[in-house]
């Protein structure tokens, strides 16, 4: 009997989520009608490639926002992880496979360490994560510049950059990787204790603590996951652009937060989903792409992007309110 309950719950959620899906569909239809190239295989490949980094960052950000935190440092962590990985990959005397493996490990580890530090500092001393990660934004950026002396790291093995631009049936491999991350995150959030605790902490931290769970531990895990996704984003960045720049990813945190919020996750924590985040990232990507195809000036483009972000959140608010009173 609870399966029917689950299905009905799922259906309700689907309808609830359809709001954001409808917005996405509306944008797609609009751009398909008014531009010549929007709905072409090439362009769709482009969009998917272009949203991949933001999507990966936003998946990690979803965990942090769900526990009621925020991570302003992901753009900087991405740059730091990228230059660490870049340095590892260009170490002399390594074969391409070893170089790539070492680099990926180093990049992911660097990202995780930064995230762990964010989580530890904000959870242990109960300092708002806004402040701690604002500090990390500067620390990681400074570290990236220090490590490289502000020089771009380049000359990666050919195999690596091929991975960055390879397609499977027209779908970028890096986007498939990001989708896989979305799936894993969805599974964690809906089918593990960790996920249950993350929603619980976001809703009522005290109730979770009094039920005998370590809030500290789960907060650390959420931030570490966010750091890890910044590390993954760093690897994808390198594979796509074939360089590792210490000034990469400036402002990326805001795009990632925007994707999460547009996707219907509450900034107060406790409510939202990673599927919504996927939708949010798609909306941002479709908009950025479509407005260029439409031939709008850069400044108009920037304004419209802002307007759409606000509209998406208002729509979600309206939906939440309407949904409550029915």
């Amino acid at each position, binding site marked *: 009997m609870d399966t029917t309950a689950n299905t009905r719950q799922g259906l309700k959620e689907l309808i609830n989520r359809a709001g954001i899906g409808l917005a996405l569909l509306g944008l797609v239809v609009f751009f398909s009608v008014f531009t010549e190239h929007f709905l072409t295989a090439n362009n769709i490949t482009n969009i998917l490639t272009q949203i991949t980094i933001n999507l990966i960052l936003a998946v990690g950000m979803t965990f942090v926002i769900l526990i009621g935190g925020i991570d302003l440092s992901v753009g900087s962590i991405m740059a730091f992880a990228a230059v660490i990985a870049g340095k590892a990959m260009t170490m002399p005397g390594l074969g391409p496979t070893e170089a790539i493996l070492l680099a990926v490990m180093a990049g992911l580890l660097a990202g995780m360490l930064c995230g762990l530090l964010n989580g530890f500092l904000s959870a242990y001393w109960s300092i708002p994560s806004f402040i701690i990660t604002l500090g990390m934004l500067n620390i990681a950026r400074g570290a990236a510049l220090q490590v490289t002396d502000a020089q771009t790291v380049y000359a990666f093995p050919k195999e690596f950059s091929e991975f960055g631009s390879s397609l499977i049936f027209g779908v970028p491999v890096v986007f498939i990787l990001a989708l896989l991350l979305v799936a894993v995150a969805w599974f964690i959030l809906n089918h593990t204790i960790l996920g249950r605790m993350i929603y619980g902490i976001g809703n*009522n931290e005290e109730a979770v603590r009094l039920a005998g769970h370590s809030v500290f531990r789960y907060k650390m895990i959420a931030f570490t996951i966010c750091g890890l996704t910044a590390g993954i984003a760093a690897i994808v960045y390198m594979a796509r652009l074939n360089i590792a720049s210490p000034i990469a990813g400036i402002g990326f945190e805001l795009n990632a937060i925007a994707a999460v919020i547009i996707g219907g996750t509450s900034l107060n924590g406790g409510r939202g989903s990673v599927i919504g985040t996927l939708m949010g990232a798609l909306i941002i990507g479709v908009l950025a792409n479509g407005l260029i195809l439409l031939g709008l000036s850069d400044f108009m483009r920037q304004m419209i992007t802002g307007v759409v972000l606000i509209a998406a959140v208002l729509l979600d608010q309206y939906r939440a309110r309407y949904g409550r*009173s029915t």
Partner: protein
Amino acid sequence: MTNIQRLEAGSDNDETVLRVTGLKKHFGGVKALDGVDFSLRKGEVHALVGENGAGKSTLIRVLTGVHTFKDGAITLGGASFAPQSPQQAKARGVQVVHQELNLLSHLSVAENISIEALPRNRFGLYDRAETRRRARLALDAIGLSDVDVDAVVSTLGIAHRQLIEIARALQSDSAILILDEPTATLTDREKLRLFDIVRAMAARGVTVVFVTHHLDEVFAICQRVTVFRNGKTIITQDIPQTSPAEVVRHMVGREVGQLATKRPAIPANVPIALSLKSFRVAGSSSADGVSLDLRYGEILGIAGLVGSGRTELLRGIFAIDPVVSGTLQRDGVDISLKNPAQAIAAGIGFVTEDRKDEGLILSMPIAANTTLANMNLVTRLGLLRHRGEASIATEYGAKLQLKFGKISDAVSSLSGGNQQKVVLAKWLATAPRVLMLDEPTRGVDVGAKAEIYAILRDLADQGMAILVVSSELPELMTLCDRILVMAQNAIQGCVMPADYAEENILKLAYRQS
């Protein structure tokens, strides 16, 4: 008392200030108000009672301009009344003091009292002296001369905060003042003080609507009572013409059985489940601390005024707050608990005082809340078994006669009594041997209250050791095998069933024995 008599005589004049007829308010498919009739006379204290979900809160929200309405009519002072906002309601003299406090906790008492219209001096700047003067006046008017107007609200106890909110509502010229569960957090002494204030207000011609779950209060202070059930007005009666039993019958729509009967004392050979010796929590004002023994199968009550250290004691036992000295024994063995997880592992459960802030994750499903304290029941290798979880939650729901739609519904969709049952289910799912409860029936309606008492009695009969803290003395006297009375972080004495009387308990609580 003289006030009341004078008012009762005056109420014969039948000066109706507010009349509600055929009021309907629907939220989607839910009929929160389904044709309500309600009237108020000038200067009366009118009780509004009904189980949770009966429509009391919705009516208050309509009267105070939070909700608008389409069907029905309201007249206030002879003119039509349809407030579109709380400001409009206030302008017509309708004020409410909410159950949830609306004070700005980092501002001073004076600033809070004047926050809606901060006074300005002739230069148009904020006038601090005038703010303080008005606050002093407002506080003195309700007999709160002991409260410093410059005190920051967060430093005051919850009872004082409530009185300050009443002072705030009263300083503007209210025609109708609605008090929503005003005594929920008050001790008996504070309650009496509030009643005096209410009587004085009524004598000045203010009409007071008293929304409460406590019928003793209704009969102590009100002249008339209106009963709501399922969004409808059941009856309005003059207090002298009715009885508590009759009101309860109207509220629940059926007769409520007598509460659990007295039982023989627990024999001394029953093993002790939990034993405290000179147990002192941080901030305790007592040098000796608390010593007590709790036996299996026993329901031990702890009475005391707010601030006597009852809640702090339970929080100390459950290792939420630090313990400074003393020992804690489980089954005769000294143990030292470092966090709630270890307390749970030691077989202790703790139903906290505040289910919204500490007990429940309101927006999460009933099922998820039920298993929150014992995730092992429903996980394998860290993975959740949703189906197993639903069936376990359903099982506990059935055991506790939980009334719910779907087990996957959010807890926030339940009434107060059923929410409390979910908290209980959560702790029962940990299979505790010792269960501690702090104010187990706060904000719970009469029917559910009786059910919760029966459940606790049943658990004790099955051998569970139960420790109950409550401000409601009838509750403790109904439920407990023994009542310990606390004051100033120490046990002042023990009252046995043979001596159960509010007077005996209060004497100890006020340290008058």
